[in-house]
């Protein structure tokens, strides 16, 4: 078997769709370490990559695998790694490294119930804040979250493209249900491909950390004669040590943030479903958004004006999804498979313009449409 | 064996940290420590171009002229 056919009906799991999306987006190096419920991504990549001339390596631990993809990206390849909660904790180090070196890479995190080893096979959305703040030091990060197998394919392609565009790590935040359920999907014949900008100047003129017109510095492949220094300590625009220069540190951190925060319109915002006349919005992402959509339909059948706001980009938080509707809402309900994580950010953004309520579940089970409907009905006083 | 011509030995004092290694490793006592600890050439005619000082200097600060 050589790869998955386009334009044909396929029955794929989320993890398989993720691997296929990565291959189609041009990922040619994957370093992994086995962990439930993400291992099928590594297994699929191990089978598929040699078929397209790429390489898979199983590293000795989680830290080794994220380090290896950073290395391969420096040498010019599109790269990916996949893990789950306990692995994410170990990869915190490598994520910060990729942020500071500005190395394009994709890290898939298939959320399972925690803390610690928790419930290995059962879903959660408990890594939402960890994905935002899971490495030390102030840093920007892009996190996108799929709710279906088809969207896992699409957002894996998107994650690779965003990583290349922004010279940044991108986290694809999946969960144990989306990753392991099988759905019928039709893969597109063509996908959009974004390649990192490489330097157009002579090596003597190359500055690996000087922002170009798109906010991002061009990146030379190691081995192409540009002799640049990928340096995780505070560095100047040439990459050289500036660990005692406060003004260089200030400029560096501001630039790292600006390259993403000044281009938020390039991030996939998400979906507003039946929101035009909605009085209550369910704000939900990932697998929970599937239940929320079903709940919205059930509510509408009962004549309740309920809609769904489904963010695709989780971080940076895009208030543009909420802002157009918030004045007409009496309440937002934020169902999550955690004890209430993203709900705090929603509260901050809504800022008292509307009530914001949390619906939590943290027992390794998913939130059902009925649970959401009950909560919505209660909020609406019906 | 002492060459009749003195060997050209250059010391870059901007790079030298006066660690004393070159002075002590020289088998022919070509160098001595000045009062500030940095090397000074006392007799370049004794140098046999063994290059030990140049090859061991951690700071690339001493260079011995090679034969033509």
């Amino acid at each position, binding site marked *: 078997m050589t790869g998955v056919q386009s334009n044909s009906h396929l029955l794929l799991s989320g993890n398989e769709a993720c691997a296929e999306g990565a291959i189609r987006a041009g990922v040619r190096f994957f370093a992994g370490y086995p962990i439930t419920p993400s291992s099928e991504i590594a297994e699929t990549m191990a089978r598929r990559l040699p078929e397209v001339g790429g390489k898979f390596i199983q590293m000795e631990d989680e*830290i080794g695998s994220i*380090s*290896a993809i950073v*290395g391969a990206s420096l040498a010019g390849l599109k790269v990916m790694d996949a893990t789950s909660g306990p692995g994410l904790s170990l990869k915190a180090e490598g994520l910060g490294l990729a942020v500071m070196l500005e190395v394009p890479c994709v890290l898939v995190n298939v959320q399972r119930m925690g803390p610690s080893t928790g419930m290995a096979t059962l879903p959660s959305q408990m890594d939402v804040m960890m994905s935002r703040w899971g490495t030390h030091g102030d840093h920007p990060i892009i996190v996108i979250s799929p709710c279906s197998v088809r969207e896992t394919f699409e957002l894996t392609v998107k994650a690779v493209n965003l990583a290349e565009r922004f010279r940044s790590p991108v986290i694809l935040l999946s969960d144990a249900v989306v990753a392991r359920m099988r759905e019928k999907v039709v893969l597109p014949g063509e996908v959009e491909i974004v390649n990192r900008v490489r330097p157009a100047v002579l090596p003597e003129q190359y500055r690996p950390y000087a922002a170009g017109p798109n906010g991002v510095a061009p990146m030379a492949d190691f081995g192409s004669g540009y002799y640049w220094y990928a340096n995780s300590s505070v560095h100047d625009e040439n990459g050289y040590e500036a660990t005692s220069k406060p003004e260089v540190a200030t400029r560096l951190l501001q630039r790292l943030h600006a390259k993403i925060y000044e281009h938020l319109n390039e991030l996939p915002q998400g979906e507003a479903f039946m929101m035009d006349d909605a009085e209550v919005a369910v704000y939900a992402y990932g697998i929970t958004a599937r239940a929320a959509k079903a709940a919205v339909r059930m509510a509408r059948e009962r004549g309740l004006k309920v809609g769904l706001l489904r963010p695709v980009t989780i971080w940076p938080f895009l208030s543009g999804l909420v802002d157009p509707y918030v004045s007409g809402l009496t309440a937002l309900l934020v169902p999550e498979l955690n004890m209430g994580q993203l709900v705090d950010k929603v509260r901050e953004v809504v800022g008292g313009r509307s009530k914001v309520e949390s619906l939590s579940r943290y027992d390794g089970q998913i939130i059902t449409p009925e649970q959401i409907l009950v909560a919505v009905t209660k909020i609406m006083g019906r | 064996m002492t060459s009749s011509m003195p060997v050209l030995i250059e010391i870059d004092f901007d790079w030298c940290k*006066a660690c004393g290694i070159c002075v002590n490793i020289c088998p022919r006592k070509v160098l001595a420590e000045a009062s500030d600890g940095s090397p000074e050439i006392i007799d370049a005619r004794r140098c046999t171009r063994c290059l030990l000082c140049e090859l061991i200097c951690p*700071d690339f600060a001493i260079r011995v002229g090679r034969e033509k």
Partner: protein
Amino acid sequence: MAKPAELASTKELIEKYIRRNGVPSIWCPGCGIGTVVGSMLRAIDHLRLRQEDVVIVTGIGCSGLIYNYLRFDGFHGTHGRALAIATGIKAANPRLHVVVPMGDGDCAAIGGNHFIHAARRNIDLTAIVINNQIYGMTGGQSSPTTVQQSRTSTAPRGHLERPFDVCELAKGAGATYIARGVTSNPIQLADLLERAMAHKGFSVVEVLSQCPVQAGRRAGRSEPWEMLQWLKGVTVSAKRGTDDVSLGKFITGELLKEDAPEWTEEYDKLIAIAGGRS
């Protein structure tokens, strides 16, 4: 072994490989790391490696700053991960000679897992383990190669634990080229590094080096020259063979060289079988 005059002069090294505004280095007077850098550059030069084919990957610690003075593609990053990063670089572009200088703490403590597995894989990297038996940059704490009874800032009453023998560790893990050099002999060191870089497979060169400030001071040997004399005294060349003099000393020279399948070459075969094009 190349004669000293056949090795690149310091002037040539500076012209080709040294980043002038980086020098003088941050290292303390008499630190052995600079000598290792010199021998490493002379090995690269004598092997006639193309500059764009060499990547220098370092970790954290005093040795982690090596790249700051050089003109190659280079990496300075997370503590202990240099070999894992290097593995990714080499896998992505097998044309590259990836040279990985590390300290004893970087390699054998926090990076120990990556070290043994890189050796097991026999991936074509050159690990240079600069062993000064101490954590220098952080203030003289014990490392995995600190000898028993010696005093460190975290063993003020003497170090209790036994040290790793880095070369034996590499051997047990499957490295296919192993050598030990010492900073008191930079000519032999350049030769060993050249052999290591020329070797196809995972090569390890342990370099016994001096830290006069953090290790020497506590051992009553704070002068760099005293440290070098001490290093000469505790080492003996492999050529001498095992005798009474070599008993309990560090053997220097080439300790192991064998041919074994190399990871990137094996993977390319796998790609060919799978029908892909690398």
